[in-house]
């Protein structure tokens, strides 16, 4: 009897506490600074072109083989690159968001963007091309390896909301 009553009391208690639900599509979750969404290509604003030099290291390191890229000879002369990418595809339907491609890139040319809302009706639309990858990488700065500033605790971690 005691245990059954305990169950009733406990459920009453939780009935009276505040729900922990976050209303996702209306209320975006607090993304952490290190959050790894879709990988993106970074844009070099100084010379107004992509940083990537088409060295293919990321494609070879990707555990899911989801990066495909082709390079072109670089002739603009704004930087001392030898090559620049012509095409760069990532199949985000296969990507496991592991961040290895970012880690291995020797030129800091890519970063995991906070872009994660990928629901779609057609999985072919998940194959992002160069422009889309640059688009989701806009405003993203290369962070991997550098510590981020201390922020406040996200609300959900505050124990007072639970008690």
């Amino acid at each position, binding site marked *: 009897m005691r245990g*059954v009553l305990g*169950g*009733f009391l*406990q*459920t*009453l208690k*939780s*009935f009276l*506490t505040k*729900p*922990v*639900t976050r*209303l996702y599509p209306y209320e975006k979750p607090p993304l952490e600074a290190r959050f790894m969404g879709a990988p993106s290509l970074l844009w070099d604003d100084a010379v107004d072109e992509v940083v990537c030099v088409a060295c293919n290291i990321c494609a070879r390191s990707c555990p899911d083989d989801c990066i495909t890229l082709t390079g072109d000879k670089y002739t603009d002369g704004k930087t001392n690159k030898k090559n620049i990418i012509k095409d760069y595809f990532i199949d985000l339907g296969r990507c496991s968001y592991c961040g290895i491609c970012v880690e291995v890139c020797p030129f800091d040319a890519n970063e995991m963007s906070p872009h994660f809302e990928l629901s779609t009706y057609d999985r072919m639309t998940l194959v992002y091309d160069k422009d889309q990858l640059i688009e989701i990488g806009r405003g993203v700065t290369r962070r991997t390896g550098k510590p981020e500033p201390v922020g406040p605790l996200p609300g959900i971690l505050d124990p007072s909301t639970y008690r």
Partner: protein
Amino acid sequence: MTNNAASELTLQAVPSWMPAFLVAPMIGGLSLADLIALVVLLLFVLNFVMIEIWMERKVAGHIQLRRGPLHVGPHGSLQSPADVLKLLTKEDLTPVAADPIVFPMAPYLVFVPVFLTFLVIPWGPLVLFGNFVIRPFDLGLVYMVAIPAMQGIGLVMAGWSSGNKYSLLGSARVVAQLISYELPMVIALLGVAMMAESLNLTTIVESQMKQGWNVFLQPIGFLVFFLATMSEMSRAPFDIAVAESEIVGGPFVEYSGMRWGMFYLAEFAAVCLNSALSTALFLGGWELFPGSRALGLGWISDQFGLLFFMGKMIVLVLIIQWARFALPRLRIDQLMDFAWKFLLPAGFVNFILTAILQVFGFVPFAIGIGLTLAFAAVLLATYQARRSPSTVALIRTAAAAAVPTSQGVGLPV
């Protein structure tokens, strides 16, 4: 109260709250007033079920640290109508292995008995309308036991005709459960009938206003009745017939669309029905609080009784819903044990105690209650003494004392 009328199933053809000009024209044995009453009742049941489903989802949500339905209407209150619309537009699948005649018939056989039982419920009076009860049968108590029992047939038909082994298991469980719990329920009702000296539900409510509510006079009876009805309608923790984690929905596995909706409707209508019956039989029906008549406050109940009836009913519904989210499910053998080894003897104890009260008066009744309590205490003490010490404590002490196993004891890799 043995007059001639009660010995046969008399139909009081005149609902007291209908104006006379509606009662006069008869269409095939039913007056216009009857038809209107039925339509009103059906609308009430359907609407109440929707509110109840919304309530349950809200209760579940908040118990589980969620919020429940939120988006359709204010606080999600229009979620149930939206769900009904969705169910209505959904494709009605009949599996190839299903019986083409029995399979579509079963949902109606489950819902209709529940709905029919609502006819005898004395909802209570409301100003200007008079007393709401559609058919105050003199054999109301017998009727309310007999008719819902037909539900079992519908569920067996559903389970058997689906051509699915899970539904078959589920329907076998339904039969076992219904038969076992019918008995304690009826035994508990004997006490009620004895106190009121009548089988008419309205009379039972009125007698409670004079003698005191049955829940205080026969608490054991109330408990037995409440638990037995909870099991009859397959509500957690007695929901072995539908048990999603074992037989994934029992008899309903193969149903979809509005046919499935009918089962759902029947389940929630049954919750409403049984709460209403418990209210009428044990909680003093439409009386505001016990003994209000003696204090001269009887007129409040006489004017607004319907509201109090509904209030009590909703509280019971909430308790039933609460139990669903507070407790794990019983196993089938434990369920049977509970019916035969606990509820049935308890029902008999209640029966005897009530008989003592009725025949010998209050003092022997109080002595009887005392003896019962003493006996229960002895039983509990024996049980406690025979129980092994708490495993939680054992594990804690063992954990502290455990010597780490030496390197030698490895496991075969």
